[in-house]
């Protein structure tokens, strides 16, 4: 039986009492060990969801339940132990003077004893491949490395949910790849629900489920393959359709009987090969 970790019940949110609604009546659920990608154009409300999940903001309407607890002023400190977050700007979330100080920050806040901290620092830095940089200062790290440290510092408090809020948006392609690989390897190993927030459709192919946001509403909630098949509507809401999906479409149009909605090159080539050898 899958355990429900996060539940949004008819959540609406706006900044101030007069502002436009940033989220409108959103409901969804996220289970343990699940990888959910939330995508949408800038201003679609996807980052607001992240902040609500962590008690950095509170909804005006509706309820958010995390691990059985309703998010409110009293419960936030418990909830922040369960929900760790990595933000967009690598610089503006690095608190420590060195890598190990930064990883320690969250544990220090919870009064974790020193020996335990030292152990967790070694473990989590190894998990993100940053073990050789324990004493390095932040300005000597690349953006991708800083984000890996940020992931390690969240893992150090052993949360149930890890949220990456556009954590790759400010990175170059190699940094982006570093993070995606790190995330995939962590997801395989740790007991962790993962929420990745992005506007890059390429990054959602590995997720179990995708929530597509558009102007504050949940537009679609499907597996990646189904999402990829809706090219026209994705473009309409300002998202990019991956190359492989466009190619599959064009192939069909050219009279090639593609039988699947491919998620990546291998799947498409495999399908083409089957067609090819059948003839």
């Amino acid at each position: 039986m899958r355990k429900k970790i996060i539940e949004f019940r008819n959540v609406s949110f706006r900044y101030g009492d007069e502002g436009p609604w940033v989220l409108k009546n959103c409901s969804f659920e996220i289970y343990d060990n699940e990888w959910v990608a939330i995508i949408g154009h800038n201003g679609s409300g996807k980052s607001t969801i992240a902040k609500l999940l962590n008690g950095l903001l509170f909804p005006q309407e509706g309820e958010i339940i995390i691990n059985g607890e309703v998010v409110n002023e009293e419960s936030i400190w418990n909830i922040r132990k369960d929900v760790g977050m990595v933000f967009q700007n690598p610089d503006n979330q690095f608190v420590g003077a060195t890598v190990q100080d930064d990883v320690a920050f969250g544990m220090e806040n919870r009064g974790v004893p020193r020996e335990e901290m030292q152990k967790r620092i070694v473990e989590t830095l190894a998990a993100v491949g940053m073990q050789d940089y324990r004493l390095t200062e932040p300005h000597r790290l690349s953006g991708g490395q800083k984000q890996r440290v940020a992931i390690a510092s969240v893992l150090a408090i052993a949360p149930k949910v890890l949220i990456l809020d556009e954590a790759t948006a400010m990175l170059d392609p190699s940094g982006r790849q570093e993070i995606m690989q790190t995330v995939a390897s962590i997801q395989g190993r740790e007991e962790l629900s993962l929420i990745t927030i992005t506007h890059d459709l390429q990054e959602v192919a590995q997720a179990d489920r995708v929530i597509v946001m558009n102007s504050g509403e949940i537009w679609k909630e499907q597996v990646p393959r189904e999402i990829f098949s809706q090219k026209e509507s994705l473009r309409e809401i300002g998202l990019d359709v991956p190359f492989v999906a466009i190619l599959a479409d064009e192939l069909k149009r050219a009279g090639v009987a593609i039988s699947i909605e491919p998620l990546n090159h291998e799947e498409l080539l495999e399908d083409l090969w089957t067609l090819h050898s059948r003839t």
Partner: protein
Amino acid sequence: MDITFENVTYIYQQNTPFAHKAINDLSFQIKSGSFVAIIGHTGSGKSTLIQHLNGLAIPTEGKVSIGGYHLTKEEKPKDMKELRSKVGVVFQYPEHQLFEETVAKDIAFGPQNFGVSEAEIKTRIKEITPAVGLDETLLERSPFDLSGGQMRRVAIAGVLAVKPDVLVLDEPTAGLDPRGQKEIMDMFYKLHQEQELTTILVTHSMEDALKYADHVLILNKGTKYMEGSPEEVFSQKEALQRVQLDVPEMVQFLNEFQEKFGTAITFKKQSIKELAEAIQQQIKGAEST
């Protein structure tokens, strides 16, 4: 304006223990009116290179020529301002340079510094605002009240209002969502063609380089690693991978296709539709035999 780099070397903090060679013996030429993409990793010398284009950096050795302006260690243009009015630079995250009370004032800031008359500035703002996709009602607003995407457009308008001959773009779409990225790049491409600009685009996106550039320059560790038309450069997958650079996704797919099917489809900047037809031919070819 033609741009020439002749054996340019640039050393940061020369004669200190922290001296660091950012560019090493770099030579290349950019023809007036071309659209050049410069690609390389963080630390490959890209940002140092573009700082030479408007005299923010002066070569430690060698010579940079931009039209009639020459930069060497010994000889600097007397009027650096004039050079800077001819070469507009849109830096990474240009919205960070906004500071005026209103959008209109911020756009006017550059032209004012370069001595453009107030009347002329007014006409230019009228022209540029719609061109960068900004609503005219925003002109009297504070730039700090706008969304990130709008602020980016204001900053770009501020550079364009100077009417440069050369436009240097340092990752102009970083941090935007896909629609924003496409709109901004299409806008630059349109300007490039309409105003016959020389455009230099620093980018990580192979897809953008392929789509917009007519010449590609690959930098690695401060030196020129490859140069040529996008078709030439991007078909050399091994060479690019040696410096950990990707190829455009279509090239990647063609390579995988060749591996699987044993037959090659040549890359010639075709559209996805043309590619699909070529694949269909291949498969049908097998059918007839």
